[in-house]
């Protein structure tokens, strides 16, 4: 196919797919770590704590 010029993939786009997409396999054979929604929530908390000194860009729009 045509190769489209590709910038560095943004982590958030990657996580949309890797944490919300892909086949979920759970069962006795796998480790039980499928509750990725929790990861997502923790991640948000993590990032907002990292950025607490940076004004959130959307506040102006509320």
């Amino acid at each position: 196919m045509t190769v489209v010029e590709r910038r560095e993939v943004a982590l958030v786009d990657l996580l949309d797919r890797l944490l919300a997409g892909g086949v979920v396999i759970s069962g006795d054979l796998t480790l039980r770590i499928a509750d990725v929604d929790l990861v997502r929530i923790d991640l948000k908390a993590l990032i907002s704590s990292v950025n607490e000194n940076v004004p959130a860009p959307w506040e102006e729009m509320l």
Partner: protein
Amino acid sequence: MSGLRYVYAVCRPFGTPLPAQLTGVAGVPPKQLAHGELVAVVGQVPEEDFAEEPLRAHLEDLDWLGATARAHQNVIDALTVVTSPLPLRLATVFLDDSGVRTMLQEREETFVRTLDRLEGRVEWGVKVYAEPPETAGRPEGSGGADARPAPAAGTAGSGRDYLRRRRNQRKESEERWQRAERFASRLHASLSGYAEDTRMHAPQNSALSGASGRNILNAAYLVPRTGSEAFVELVDRTKDDEPGLRVELTGPWAAYSFSGEDT
């Protein structure tokens, strides 16, 4: 052999070998594990990082999560060059090879059906952002100067003027969102015409993405490789249609958003 098995994807057997220098999660080159009509692409990962408890802790560490996600994607990307892989969710870990084989066996029928559906298709991501307005909606007290009409400001700033100004700002803001929504649904409708399937992702939080503006559309489209050029051109054409809105295209991705059975 000790260590756990990290599974990236399930594929049909592909003739082309993966690049020799390709590494995946934990810096380990992925290998193919064939069973029946299918191949699992697998990497051996250390228990101290990928057993249930350490993995859970690691997943809350953004640096670790980011590096692992990129390593995972690295392998999926390489697979996408040689086949149409069915990607698994991040951090799908098995105890050993025989666990992987049993999984392939048990789900063979479903995997084959899904792989048939994804054969020769890729995923494109399209996002629409509404740029924040230049002046409207500032929190009170911050930069009031440019929010006020310059002449005749003085003593005329009565409560009624203030309320009118606020009302106008609110109205403009509503109209802007309605325009943005209309643009996004029009774009989605025309892109869907080129796609075999579509998925809506939740709008991205700008604290996570670092992107400016509010994300009002975050959609994925399953497109035949042969139709990708037309799809990309269509996105390019609509990009500058509406001032104040920004369209972003990502991809081609492996069909992450279309790996479910229900599609």
